[in-house]
C-alpha cells in the first residue's frame, strides 16, 4: 500500500501493517495457559511427572540387586511415558477450545487468514513439547545424580533414547493436534487419542497373535512398533524401518492433519 510518494495528507497516516507470525505465536502461547482448565492441566502434568520420578527412584532403590544400571534414558523415559499420555491433551485443547468456547469467532475475525492462526497453534504445540523434553531430561539428570548418590550404579549413556523420545513426543503432540483439528470437539479428540494409544496397539497385537499374515500388514500402521527403533537412534534404522515409520506417520498424523486443516479453513464459524 505505502508508496515512496506518500505524503502527510495520506488518509491513513497509521495504515495498519499485517500481523507478524511471531505475534500470533505469542498470543497462541498465552492462550495455552491463560485459562483455568489449561493452566491446571499443565500444572498437573508437571506434578504427575515429578511424582512418577520419585516413585521410579524408590522402586529402583528398593529392588536394587546390584546389577541394575540406570542410564540417562531411564528417568527421562518415565517422564516421557507420563507426557505421552497427557501432553497431547494440551495440543487438543489448543484447537478445540476455540470451537467449544466459540472464541474462533473472535480469533478469526482478528486474523482471517486462518492457516496462520493454526500454524501458530502448531508452533505452540511444539514449544510445549520441547519444554516437556527439557523438563524430562533435566529430571533424568537430577534423578540420575540422586540415584547415584544413593549408591546405585549410574551410566551417562542413553542419549539415543533421548533423541528418539524427542521425536516421538513431537509426533504424538502433533497426532493429538491433527485429530483435534479434524473432529473439533474436545472429548471426541481425547477419546480418539487414547484409543490410538491404548486400544489400537492391543487390537493389532491380538491380530498379530491370531492371524499369521496380519503381522505383515499391521506393522505399517502399528505406531508403537514403527517408532520403537527410534529409541536406538534414527541413524541406525534400516530402510524397512524407515518405511514403516513414514507410513505410520502418514496414517496417524499427516492424513488427519491435512483433512483437519482443510476443514478449519473452510468451516463456517458461528
Amino acid at each position, binding site marked *: 500500500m505505502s508508496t515512496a510518494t506518500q505524503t502527510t495528507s*495520506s488518509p491513513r497516516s497509521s495504515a*495498519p501493517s499485517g500481523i507478524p507470525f511471531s*505475534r500470533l505465536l505469542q498470543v497462541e502461547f*498465552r492462550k495455552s495457559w491463560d485459562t483455568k482448565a489449561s493452566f491446571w492441566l499443565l500444572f498437573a502434568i508437571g506434578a504427575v511427572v515429578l511424582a512418577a520420578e520419585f516413585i521410579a527412584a524408590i522402586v529402583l532403590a528398593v529392588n536394587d540387586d546390584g546389577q541394575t544400571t540406570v542410564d540417562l534414558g531411564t528417568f527421562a523415559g518415565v517422564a516421557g511415558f507420563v507426557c505421552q499420555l497427557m501432553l497431547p491433551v494440551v495440543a487438543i485443547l489448543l484447537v478445540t477450545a476455540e470451537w467449544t468456547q*466459540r472464541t474462533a469467532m*473472535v480469533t478469526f*475475525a*482478528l486474523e482471517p487468514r486462518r492457516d496462520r492462526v493454526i500454524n501458530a497453534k502448531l508452533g505452540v504445540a511444539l514449544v510445549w513439547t520441547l519444554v516437556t523434553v527439557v523438563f524430562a531430561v533435566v529430571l533424568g539428570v537430577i534423578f540420575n545424580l540422586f540415584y547415584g548418590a544413593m549408591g546405585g550404579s549410574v551410566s551417562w549413556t542413553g542419549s539415543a533414547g533421548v533423541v528418539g523420545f524427542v521425536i516421538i513426543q513431537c509426533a504424538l503432540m502433533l497426532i493429538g493436534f491433527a485429530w483435534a483439528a479434524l473432529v473439533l470437539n474436545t472429548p471426541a479428540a481425547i477419546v480418539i487419542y487414547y484409543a490410538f494409544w491404548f486400544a489400537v496397539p492391543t487390537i493389532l497385537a491380538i491380530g498379530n497373535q491370531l492371524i499369521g499374515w496380519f503381522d505383515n500388514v499391521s506393522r505399517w500402521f502399528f505406531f508403537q512398533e514403527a517408532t520403537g527403533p527410534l529409541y536406538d537412534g534414527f541413524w541406525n534404522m534400516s530402510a524397512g524401518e524407515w518405511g514403516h515409520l513414514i507410513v505410520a506417520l502418514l496414517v496417524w498424523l499427516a492424513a488427519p492433519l491435512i483433512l483437519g486443516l482443510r476443514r478449519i479453513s473452510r468451516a463456517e464459524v*458461528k
Partner: protein
Amino acid sequence: MRRVGAGWQAVTMIKVEGLTRTYGAYTAVDDVTFTCEPGRVTGFLGPNGAGKSTTMRIMVGLTPPTKGRATIKGVDYHDLPNPARTVGVLLDASAQHGGRTGREVLTLSAMTMGLPASRVDEMLHLVSLSPSEAKRRVKNYSLGMKQRLGIANALLGDPEILILDEPANGLDPAGIRWMRGLLKTYAERGGTVLLSSHLLHEVEMIADEMILIGRGKILAQGDRAALLAHNTNAVETLATSLDNDALAAALSAKGIAVVPAGEGLRITAEAVEVGRTALEHQIVLTDLRSGDGGLEELFLQLTADTQREGVVA
C-alpha cells in the same frame, strides 16, 4: 477523526452486493445489497432468523457466501492486513472463553493487534467495567457485562468501522442509553456503524439509515422519512375527547371513517382534520396523535409474512 484526504476517491466503507447464502434448500440471505457510509449509523432491522447475523458473519469472513460479495473499504475482509484496526466486530458477546478474565480477553486481542496494554485499561474504563470486574472470569459475567466487554473488544483497535450484532442485548436501560450515546459520538467523529437489532424502537432511536430485512431479503431501506413514505396505508389518527360520541358523529357527517379504539377513536384522516372538526363542534380533545404507528406499523406490515407469529388482526 480520520477524513478522506484531497485527491482520494471516497471509498464506500461497507459495500454488500448481491449477497446470498443458502443452506441446502434453505436461503438464509437472499440477494442482499446495501452500503454503509461514514458518519452514519445504519440499523439492520429484522425479526429473529431474518438473516442479519449470517450477513454480518459473511461480511467479516466467518461464513463463506454462496453468491455475491461484501467489501470493507473496497477490499475483502480477508485482505485487510490487520482487520481489527479497521473494523471493530462484535457478533456474539457470549462467544468468549468462560475461563478467561475480562481483562485477559482484551489483552489477547490487543496483543494480536499489536497494541500496548494501556489500551486495554482505556477500553475497560470506556465501557465502565471496574478493575475488580475485569479480574473476574467471563463465565461469571452477566449478559450486560459480556456485552460491554464485547463492545470494548470491538473498539480496541480504534477502528473506523463498527459491525455490531444485537449490541443492546442484555444491557439495562441505562446501558442502552450509554451505548446509544457512544455510537452517536462515534459516528459524529466520522465513524461508520452497522448495528443489527430485532427491536425497532432501539434502532429507530439511533440509526440514521435503516435496512429492513425479513426471510433473508431486504424489504425496505433508507432514512426514516423514506421508510415512512413507503407506508402506503391510509393515514390514521387516534383521538380521545370528552365526548367521543359527538366527535364520531361529527366526523362521520364529513364522510370520514371512524371506529372505536380503546378509550378513543381511530379515524381515517389527518390529525389536523380531526382537530378542526373538534374545534367546529366545540369538543374538548384530551389526546390526539398520529395513528399510523410510525415505523412499527411499517415494520410489522413488511415482515408480516415473515413473522413466526401470524399477524393478530
